[in-house]
């Protein structure tokens, strides 16, 4: 068990072990649980840093565990997996801090943080998966780990949300299983390789490959909330704020989008998929989802469902980037994976703060909240503007690359789609900002803020500020070689046949 094999396993174990220990902690041992949580997330952060440094030096990290005679569980760290694992680890640390603050006096916290850590293990497993079967295993584990989080409050509508979430995800998972088994029986081991395993395989009959592609995309599309399969997302807003932040920005939704990226780039290979003609329908569905999500978001008076529909449309940017053949669009798609994560998680943290501190759930109640919660609303504004695509913030970069990519692949109609959706984004975010900053406060909460005291619990305040700052930094210093954009460029080069 050399170091290069042990590191990925250690990254997985750091949250798995803490999770299992937390499960059996008594409810009252708050300090021990907090220490365990933070140390688990901290160790993972350090290990991922070591991993990135190692890969940067050119070292390859791979752990292979035999599962069945012809199938192996493979954890492999390549550029694409590093992008997602670093995103999820950073955001995980931040969400853990936020969740500790948010759930200060609620019951069943040991159970919550136990499943919380299982969730991160599954997400990191998805990120580091080296073949389609390992991906599937962690993908299903993610469903099982997020279900109890969704049901955490135990209220009637959170149980209903859990039921609906399960129906969608288990059905999607079943189709995915059939697709993977079928592909495995045709094409043998499905290890992810840079330009796709099936790229050279002209011996397989194209129609079967199209059917399998459909199965895989539907399987992943459920979690990536593509239009016909997005029903569970707005309903699962009944979960507590850290879980909504987790579902939308880091774990579930990204797992689906990441799955589609893996399938298009590392299983089929983007040129081979284009030759099969499967990318165009994917682009069409993604575009429809973008517009549909934004339109529905317009009519949501409650803040969290509005953000939910905004997520549905934003995630489809990533899929759109994947579906357009061309390195520039690929960069746009992949870098949006990170940027959308940062911005969306900030928005949800702020929504959580509003609900937790002032009991605001609806946009109509947000008049003049900027004066009462200035720091939170600054973070909210940065993230919202980033979503719209206003320059210095990260969102602008991904939309720019997507637009350029669309022009490269001479698909002008995609540019129109991007313009429309940006306009719609503005249409549902700007009124919120206007209400918060320029309207007099009408809510029952106290107008002025006593000086000296934090506007809310520090654990609820820090996370949104950190993620908003990151979004801003990644926007301003996009060209630095450590930034997500640089990583995305590195990935894009690798994915195309020289």
């Amino acid at each position, binding site marked *: 068990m050399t170091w290069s094999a042990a590191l990925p396993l250690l990254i997985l174990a750091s949250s798995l072990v803490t999770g299992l220990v937390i499960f059996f902690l008594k409810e009252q041992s708050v300090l021990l649980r907090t220490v365990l949580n933070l140390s688990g997330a901290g160790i993972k952060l350090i290990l991922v840093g070591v991993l990135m440094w190692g890969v940067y030096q050119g070292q390859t990290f791979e752990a292979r565990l035999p*599962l*069945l005679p012809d199938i192996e569980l493979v954890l492999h760290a390549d550029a694409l997996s590093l992008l997602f694992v670093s995103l999820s680890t950073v955001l995980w640390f931040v969400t853990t801090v936020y969740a500790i603050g948010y759930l200060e006096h609620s019951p069943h916290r040991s159970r919550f943080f136990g499943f919380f850590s299982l969730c991160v293990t599954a997400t990191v497993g998805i990120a580091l998966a080296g073949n389609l079967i390992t991906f599937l295993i962690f993908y299903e584990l993610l469903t099982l780990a997020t279900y109890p989080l969704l049901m955490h409050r135990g209220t009637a509508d959170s149980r209903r949300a859990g039921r609906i979430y399960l129906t969608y995800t288990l059905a999607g998972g079943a189709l995915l299983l059939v697709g993977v088994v079928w592909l495995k029986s045709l094409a043998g081991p499905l290890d992810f390789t840079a330009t796709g395993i099936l790229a050279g395989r002209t011996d397989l009959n194209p129609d079967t490959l199209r059917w399998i592609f459909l199965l895989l995309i539907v399987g992943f599309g459920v979690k990536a909330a593509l239009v016909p399969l997005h029903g569970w997302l707005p309903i699962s807003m009944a979960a507590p704020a850290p879980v909504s932040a987790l579902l939308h920005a880091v774990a579930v939704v990204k797992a689906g989008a990441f799955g589609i990226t893996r399938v298009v780039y590392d299983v089929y290979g983007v040129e081979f998929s284009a030759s099969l003609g499967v990318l165009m329908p994917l682009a069409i569905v993604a575009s429809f989802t973008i517009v549909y999500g934004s339109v529905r978001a317009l009519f949501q008076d409650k803040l969290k469902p509005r953000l939910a529909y905004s997520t549905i449309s934003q995630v489809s940017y990533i899929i759109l980037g994947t579906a357009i053949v061309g390195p520039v669009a690929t960069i746009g798609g992949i870098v949006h994976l990170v940027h959308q994560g940062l911005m969306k998680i900030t928005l949800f943290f702020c929504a959580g703060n509003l609900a937790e501190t002032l009991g605001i759930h609806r946009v109509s109640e947000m008049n003049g909240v900027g004066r009462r919660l200035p720091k939170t609303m600054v973070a909210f504004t940065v993230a919202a503007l980033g979503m719209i695509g206003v320059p210095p913030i990260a969102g602008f970069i991904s939309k720019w690359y997507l637009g350029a990519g669309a022009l490269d692949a001479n698909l002008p109609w995609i540019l129109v789609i991007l313009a429309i959706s940006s306009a719609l984004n503005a249409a549902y975010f700007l009124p919120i900002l206007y209400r918060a900053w320029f309207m007099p406060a009408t809510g029952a909460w106290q107008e002025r803020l006593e000086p000296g005291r934090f506007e809310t619990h520090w654990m609820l305040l820090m996370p949104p500020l950190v993620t908003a700052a990151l979004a801003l930094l990644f926007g301003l210093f996009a060209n630095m070689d450590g930034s997500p954009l640089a990583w995305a460029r590195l990935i894009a080069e690798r994915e195309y046949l020289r």
Partner: protein
Amino acid sequence: MTLWWSTLCVAAPLLASVLLFLRPKRTAGIALVAVTLVLIGALGLAVVLHDSGPQFIAIGGWGAPLGIGWRIDGLTVTMLLMAGIVGWPVTIYALDYFGGAAGGRHFWPLWMLLLTALCALFLSNDLFNWYVTLELLGLSAVALVTLSGKQAALDAAQRYLYTGLVGSLFYLLGVALIYNAYGVLDLAVLREVTEPTLAVWVALGLMAVGLLVKSALFPLHFWLPAAHGSAPAPVSAILSALVVKGAFYILLRLWFDLVPAALPGAVSVILGALGAGAIIWGSLQAIRATRLKMLVAYSTVAQLGYLALFFPLSGAGEWGNAALTGVVYFMVAHACAKGAMFLAAGNLQRAAGHDNLVSLAPTAQALPVSMFAFAIAGVSIMGLPPSGGFIAKWSLLSAAIGSGGWIWVVVMIAGGLLSAGYIFRVLSLSFSESGAEPKPELAPVAKSSEWASLLLASIALLLGLNALPVLDLLSIGLPRIG
């Protein structure tokens, strides 16, 4: 050495049953020692198999046609290990469950006799010996069902007894026909001698019907839900996990040795259709069940349907091996998972005093360990990774897709989703808002019982992490298919 290990597997529980009958006072030690000896015997056989391949033992020293022979290959040892692995936690659970109760002193000799019958059945390679072991297994299972003494248990036991006896007589009639035709009872000799004549077809048909009745396949399953639902918890675990597998094991052995390759497709398709019917019907009944133990019992009916799916898939050339590994792995994973489920359900019933699902929420939240065990076992029953059930479902799916059997793929997927339907119906109990009604006072449940169900459930989980050791063991002396 093989002789010592295999004798240990059969003699230890038999001797324990007699001792427990004579002096039922010191029950704990004797029963636990016997089950441990069975496990040790099975492990010893596994080691011997690794070194020197499949073994044959002629009991009484007489050659094949005359005496009874024991055949020890990968399949046998896997089944013995299954019996030992499931038997051990069940015994620990029963120690507390039957502690002082009057019914307790009869449980132990019956359980030991059942274990003897199982081990003798798995080892045997002789048609008539199988009849006697089937009879011993069936009668001890029925006797165990009557232990709770309730009216429902007695009715269920009687129905179970009648169906079991009819099944055995059908099987015996098949044996009589085979003996009349070939004059030999040993399977190894019969394999060379039989050709597809009418007599062999009718005999196999009768034996198959008898065995399908005893392994409760779909249209002939009516006795199972009531029997498993109303029996005491450890007994239901033994019944669902082990007893029904015994009859199916014999069917599997007959399928390899006696069924001529030229089996008309129609027969295996009919069996597959029965399996599909079992999966759909059983799952729907489980979703509608009002009592927890009935839900788990109907889940057994549904999961047994998967076993019957083996027949249409096994005739599929090189995919046949994937089907065989799938079905055997399914038997082992289902045994562990279903055993753990019944033990967990038993914990909930003892704590709450009842097991109707509607008002079980507070109890579910008061017993986190049992609910956790039920959840892990549920993951294996649904065939979701990382569990043994997933490996079995994967193998069966790849056999089905490889051989182009798309109906079976649809059936398996529908089965998985339906099972999620009733499993999450139970799991959502531990999340419901229980603050409202007052905390009901719960009967104390021993820690050992809760940890026994968790141990069994985690074995089902571990089976999913690395299937290679089990598959290597299984492939020793694996009867080639087709």
